[in-house]
């Protein structure tokens, strides 16, 4: 009987709740009233246990505001995009199954262009007043203006991770990396494009090698071959010096960390400056691991959340986006043994107390300070990422 009851309960849960009309983001009181009692399905990558734990903590905060937050763990953000697209095509224009997406630049560009996103809402969130809109790229995503259709929640910057027990002076430019690979064949690799981290490596190397970085801010054009030729020449030289002579690649960033831990490679990539410290805390990397950035700076961008236009709980999703911007959540995200993500807030705008809490934060053994992180390079237009990844797959990803 209990079994039957709980089965019924499980089935009842899956029944779509009555769809509500989207509230007006400018009227926050109405939003937070509407949010009470809503269930928010947040579709976010589930491959990192640290992130999953953080999202669970956000869920506890949301519960205090009457929002039931559920993390739908994706292996790929595009899964959520596909769900939204499928639903809209089948005429499900409200009460959809995705309420909030942790979205990346390429998916944001395509969803915004196709009109799949709800907004603008971000600048109306109460905690938006703390956001650093001056120095941090929180209002463009891969050169595409966000216009309030997505809300930032963490800053990311490409860092290189190395084992200081094996590497004395890590190679801090494309040319030095090639030289180092010559001296240490089989000790470097990158996640296989189209994985976003692998694709970021391609973009970073292109920026390192090209003379005209400004060109990358505009969409790919007829001069693609001209602009990228230098990158492929470079990779042709690098490939045979990679781990497994480039015949196999790690699937994702975390897998690459595992290769360092297993002693298979010495240098890896991360898009989160604090990730290495967190991994050391979690026993996932040797204690001798450190991070560094390239001399000319590295790519950086913000992580965003967006709300699909046909979401079931717009109000609840906005409340969650707002919680993500709260000083408490941002502080927790930046704590190295929890997540180690950079904050999107402007220290100047915070209260005395919050500012002190951020200042006291010990970033951890393998995390660079904001000064050490150096120049943040702007992301190229999203068309470059797509084209580079596809081109890489055609050149290196399908034959040896």
């Amino acid at each position, binding site marked *: 009987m209990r079994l039957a009851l709980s089965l019924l309960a499980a*089935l009842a849960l899956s029944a779509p709740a009555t769809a509500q009309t989207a509230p007006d983001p400018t009227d926050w009181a109405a939003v937070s009233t509407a949010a009470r009692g809503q269930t928010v399905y947040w579709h976010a990558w589930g491959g990192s*246990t640290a992130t999953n734990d953080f999202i669970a903590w956000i869920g506890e905060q949301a519960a205090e505001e009457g929002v039931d937050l559920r993390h739908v763990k994706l292996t790929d953000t595009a899964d959520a995009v596909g769900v939204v697209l499928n639903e809209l095509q089948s005429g499900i224009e409200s009460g959809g199954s995705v309420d909030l997406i942790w979205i990346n630049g390429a998916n944001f560009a395509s969803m915004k262009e196709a009109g799949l996103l709800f907004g603008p809402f971000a600048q109306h969130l109460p905690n938006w007043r703390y956001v650093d809109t001056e120095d941090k790229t929180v209002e463009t995503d891969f050169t595409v203006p966000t216009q309030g259709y997505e809300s930032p929640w963490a800053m990311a910057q490409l860092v290189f991770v190395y084992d200081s027990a094996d590497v004395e002076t890590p190679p801090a430019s494309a040319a030095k990396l090639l030289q180092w690979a010559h001296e240490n064949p089989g000790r470097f690799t990158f996640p296989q494009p189209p994985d976003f981290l692998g694709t970021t490596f391609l973009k970073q190397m292109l920026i390192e090698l090209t003379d005209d970085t400004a060109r990358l801010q505009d969409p790919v054009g007829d001069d693609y071959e001209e602009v990228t030729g230098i990158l492929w020449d470079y990779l042709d030289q690098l490939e045979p010096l990679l781990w497994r002579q480039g015949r196999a690649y790690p699937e994702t960033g975390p897998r690459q960390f595992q290769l360092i831990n297993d002693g298979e490679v010495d240098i890896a990539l991360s898009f989160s400056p604090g990730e290495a410290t967190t991994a050391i805390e979690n026993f996932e990397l040797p204690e001798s691991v450190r991070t560094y950035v390239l001399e000319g700076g590295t790519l950086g961008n913000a992580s965003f959340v967006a709300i699909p236009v046909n979401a079931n709980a717009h109000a609840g999703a906005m409340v969650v986006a707002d919680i993500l911007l709260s000083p408490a959540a941002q502080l927790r995200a930046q704590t190295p043994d929890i997540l180690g993500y950079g904050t999107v807030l402007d220290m100047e705008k915070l209260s005395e107390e919050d500012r002190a809490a951020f200042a006291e934060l010990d970033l951890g053994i393998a995390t660079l300070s904001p000064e050490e992180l150096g120049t943040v390079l702007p992301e190229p237009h999203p068309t470059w990422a797509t084209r580079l990844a596809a081109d890489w797959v055609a050149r290196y990803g399908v034959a040896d």
Partner: protein
Amino acid sequence: MLRPLPLLTTLVLAGPVLVGLIGAVLPAFGYLVPGADMPFSRALDWPGLTRALGVSVFSGVLSTLGALGLATLILAGWHGTRPFAWLERALSPLLAVPHAAAALGLAFVVAPSGWLMRAPATLLGWERPPDLLILGDPFGLSLAAGLVAKELPFLLLMMLAALGQVQAGSRLAVARSLGQGRVAGWLKTIFPGVYAQVRLPVLVVLVFGVTNVDVAVILGPTTPSTLSVQITRWMTDPDLSTRAVAAAGGLILFAATLAVLAAWIAGEHVLARLGRAWVWSGHGLPERAARGTGLGLATVSAVMVLLGLAALAVWSVAARWTFPDLLPEGLTLRSWNRFGPEMLATAGDTMLLAVAATLVSLVLVIGCLEAEVRHGLTAGQRALWLLYLPLLIPQVTFLPGLQLLPLSLGIGPSLWLVLLGHVVFVLPYVFLSLSGPFHAWDPRFAQVATGLGASRNRVLWRLRLPMLIGPILTAVAVGMAVSVGQYLTTLLLGGGRVTTMVTEAVALASGGNRRAIGVWGLGQALAALLPFALALLLPAILYRNRRGMRHG
């Protein structure tokens, strides 16, 4: 009342497959998914297609040949001996281990920085593991080896069950009396009968080998990957029109699978012809070598999987553990504290779904079998093919369609859809485990009972079912294990909202966190094993005062 059940069962099995195929064909030819321009030519133009398809087919066929050959050699050479009993005991629990967990464990054992290499590394003081391409080799050899290790227990148990129906003892006795060796005699007299019984399961293994995703993504090559893995990539591409390319790829894979099946069946004929010639020739086999190879390889494969599981168990309690240490620096319960509570919560949902899917299947199966007895609605060989239909069509071909088509009718992903999907895959296994014992039940019991005035329902409820409680519980356990292992079904039909242990485990596997995989993988294996343990225990308790029933 029972008459409509066989038809209903047919609908439950064939309906979703048909709907799924339609949902795959339409987008592949440019319908349903807007913006998809010539999906078929895009799939065909993918530069990795030839290699990806080649690796899929090669590793699939090789693993099936390997698992079948090995299972045959062991049965032929060792059935009824003490090493066989030991091997059977070591292999059976492996059936319940989820593919992804087994593959991840195996990967850690055989990698150049893995457990096996760490022994010489520690002794010889290597600081770095050799840069060898063992995992993900371009021909898919390690993928094939992993599949053999995982499919061997399944085929072995299927063949063992079939042995009972071919008078193995007397056949072998005749062969031996004609001077045949043990292995040669078994191959000549018993194998044809056994193979006829397990032919469909072998074909299922073949299709799984060619089209699986969860093992190939861990052990298979990446430049390019197998076609099934590439199809799942297309399904998750940011460019949404690529979904149609995935559907087209699914159909290409389906066509290739059909070709492989046709080639396999042609191969059966050739082998049968050669076999007959061999039987008439009276030639034997190098018996010692054959027996040694069989036992040796089977032991290696069992040991590797068990080592992999042991590795996962150690990882789940490991503190820092780097190359070339054989064991972690320390032990900690942190991973269990961190992932355990969530796992237990998910385990409840997983079991609930498994119980529901198995009960639905059980009712349908018993209904069909009883209808067969009462109304003579016999399921012929054709019906058996139908039963295997969901297992013989690549999941990556029809599951995306099964998600897409209801969606275009306004039916979103839901627990109901997931339940239906699970029934589609659970039902065949329940049917296969139960039909043998059901038919083998002595009809004279029923005749006696009817003579005493019992109705047919009373015979069913008071005699047939209670006496078959052992096989029924086994069927339930098999069904639940199948349900617990459903990955793509749960993921696609549940739209990500229905989480079970396997969807969580595979999501974590994408991050490669061995500690988390250790906790989840062990949890999932336990979830699948528990019903088997109960199936063994319950009859022993229920029939503690009925000696004749204990081994029934």
